[in-house]
């Protein structure tokens, strides 16, 4: 029998603490859709997505109604286009992006990931063309998200790809200047990219995945924050070990909700169930913030000394609680600190408490990287490449998934704001200190060799 205290605690998570299923992401293998005829290729993609995902939104809505759990986003991830579309030229890449966008629209999902290239050890001609096509593809489509894996612990960092991506990001920002460079918010640059990540913009359907698979991203920053606040009120003797236990307990509950929903959706649409991603993903909504969790833990100004230690504790406790709750944990599974998507982090950045350097330090112990970071529009491409290289180095050395979403907002200077609304939020423009001083390094190109720790056999 479930006690009334457990019932009330569960209901509180939904009613007062913003717990929701952030995303149900259906991964679909589209490798079999490839055709030398571009129109056939596009048609096959639409048909396959329609076949597997046609019932996704309705199933999610039914399950959300049945369980009374909000499912915020329904998304798709497909096989990495750069790996399967060997024959496509620039125009072909754009057409595929449009076909993905239309297919996603037809099945009424929010976003579709997989316009991706895996170039950590080198790029094929098709992957090079995909990267070249990114600015146009992302600015011409609404739902398409892209990712490029430029580094791994096993292979090192592909600096040639990063150098190119610096230019690509600049161009993508310019092509979407009327939207504050929004195209860049749909491009993630990764080290150690996972094949089963349900979160955007970095989701793609990996080659080790089944034909169709449901991966779940659950979000509970509000739940964790309130649990910490309650514990601190009720236990004056609360220390950090106890605090970690409170977070673990909360993470357990959150993860269990995700697994329940994921299993049900997978059953209803005839897909396999993949993973629950434990990531704490904030939204711009007050009460749904990683920054507020750090404040609840006692860091008054996010970015102040102690912030890295606090988020390390949070990240580890979330993982431990989640791992106990589910045998199917994967994806990114860490606390995200995307500045634009977290109003408290954005405020801390505005106040100057949270700098780019501090964010980078924090990402060495949490997920995901320099995420949704707005920088001055006149930041030069090599500096953007160098910023990404720093983050990739953290991932490469620490056997860790990291990513960047950098947005050089056209026409904006340090201290200005950019507003996108919705889940993408708004952010001040952060200062890139000593910008323009890294070009000679990144222009060397080549590959930063893999670390010693990559040799584990």
């Amino acid at each position, binding site marked *: 029998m*479930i006690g*009334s205290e*457990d*019932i*009330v605690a*569960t209901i509180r998570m*939904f009613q007062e603490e913003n717990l929701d299923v952030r995303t149900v992401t259906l991964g679909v293998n589209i490798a079999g859709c490839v055709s030398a005829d571009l129109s056939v290729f596009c048609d096959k993609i639409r048909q396959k997505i329609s076949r597997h995902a046609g019932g996704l939104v309705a199933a999610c809505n039914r399950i959300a109604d*049945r369980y*009374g759990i909000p499912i915020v986003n329904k998304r798709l991830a497909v096989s990495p286009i750069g790996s399967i579309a060997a024959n496509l030229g620039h125009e072909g890449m754009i057409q595929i992006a449009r076909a993905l966008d239309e297919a996603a629209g037809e099945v009424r999902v929010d976003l579709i990931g997989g316009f991706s290239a895996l170039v950590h050890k080198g790029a094929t001609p098709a992957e090079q063309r995909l990267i070249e096509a990114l600015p146009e593809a992302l600015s011409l489509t609404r739902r398409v998200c892209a990712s490029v894996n430029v580094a791994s612990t096993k292979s090192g960092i592909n600096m040639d790809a990063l150098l190119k991506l610096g230019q690509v990001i600049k161009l993508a920002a310019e092509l979407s200047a009327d939207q504050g460079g929004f195209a860049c918010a749909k491009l993630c640059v990764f080290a150690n990219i996972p094949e089963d990540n349900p979160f955007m913009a970095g989701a793609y359907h990996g080659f080790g995945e089944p034909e169709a698979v449901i991966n779940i991203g659950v979000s509970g920053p509000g739940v964790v924050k309130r649990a910490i606040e309650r514990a601190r009120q009720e236990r004056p003797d609360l220390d950090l070990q106890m605090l970690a236990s409170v977070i673990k307990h909360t993470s357990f509950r959150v993860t*269990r909700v995700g697994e329940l929903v994921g299993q049900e959706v997978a059953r209803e649409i005839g897909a396999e169930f993949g993973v629950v991603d434990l990531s704490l993903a904030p939204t711009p909504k007050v009460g749904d913030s990683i920054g507020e969790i750090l404040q609840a833990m006692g860091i008054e100004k996010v970015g102040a000394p102690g912030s890295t230690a606090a988020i390390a504790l949070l990240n580890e406790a979330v993982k431990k609680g989640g791992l106990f709750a589910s045998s199917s944990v994967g994806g990114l599974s860490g606390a995200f600190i995307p500045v634009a998507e977290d109003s408290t982090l954005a405020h801390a950045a505005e106040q100057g408490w949270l700098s780019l350097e501090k964010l980078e330090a924090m990402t060495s112990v949490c997920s995901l990287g320099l995420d949704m970071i707005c920088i001055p529009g006149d930041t030069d491409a090599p500096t953007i490449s160098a910023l990404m290289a720093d983050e990739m180095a953290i991932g490469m050395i620490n056997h860790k998934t990291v990513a960047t979403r950098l947005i050089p907002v056209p026409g904006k200077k340090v201290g200005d704001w950019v507003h996108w609304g919705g889940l993408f939020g708004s952010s001040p423009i952060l200062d890139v200190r000593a910008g323009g001083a890294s070009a000679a390094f990144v222009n060397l190109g080549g590959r930063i060799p893999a670390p010693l720790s990559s040799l584990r056999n």
Partner: protein
Amino acid sequence: MSFQPTRYALSVMCQDKVGLVARLTGAVYGLGGNIEVLHQGVLQGYFVFMLMVTFPDGLDADGIRKAIESAGAPGEFVVSLLPRQDQTPAPAATGSTFVLTLSGEDSPGILKKITAYLGDQRINIEGLAAETKAGRCLITARLTIPALVDVRAARLDLAEIFKQEQVQISLMHEDIFAATSRIEMP
């Protein structure tokens, strides 16, 4: 001659004190009775004891009541007996199990409003608990909701019924609470 059991639903209420369960189960045992299901609680200092019991043939309700009452001081126990059918009745409703909770400012009539609505919708209450503390109430009910009932509409109806009151009401599938509160063994 074959054994003909006599089945009763039996309830006992009295002021709570230590040793009551031992005295009452002793009285049932003394009558040759077998307890099949038991539910016991204490509500604001009052002991509430409900049993499903099978007694040997030949015992009538009056005899059982007197025997149970004699386990206490005169007038201490209020005993009720209801003869049961030989077969356990079919469930009053079939469907999915949901948990309804209402919390907030207490006021007269809340339970009546909820239960009247549930009855109208042919939703059966399988278990119900209500408590008040410092002017606030918490009601939790385990419900069987028939497949034909639109749960989403029921949530909206309940919100509408209580829109003037300072309460929060939720109606969620039991699976949610099972998932967040326990790990099933394979």
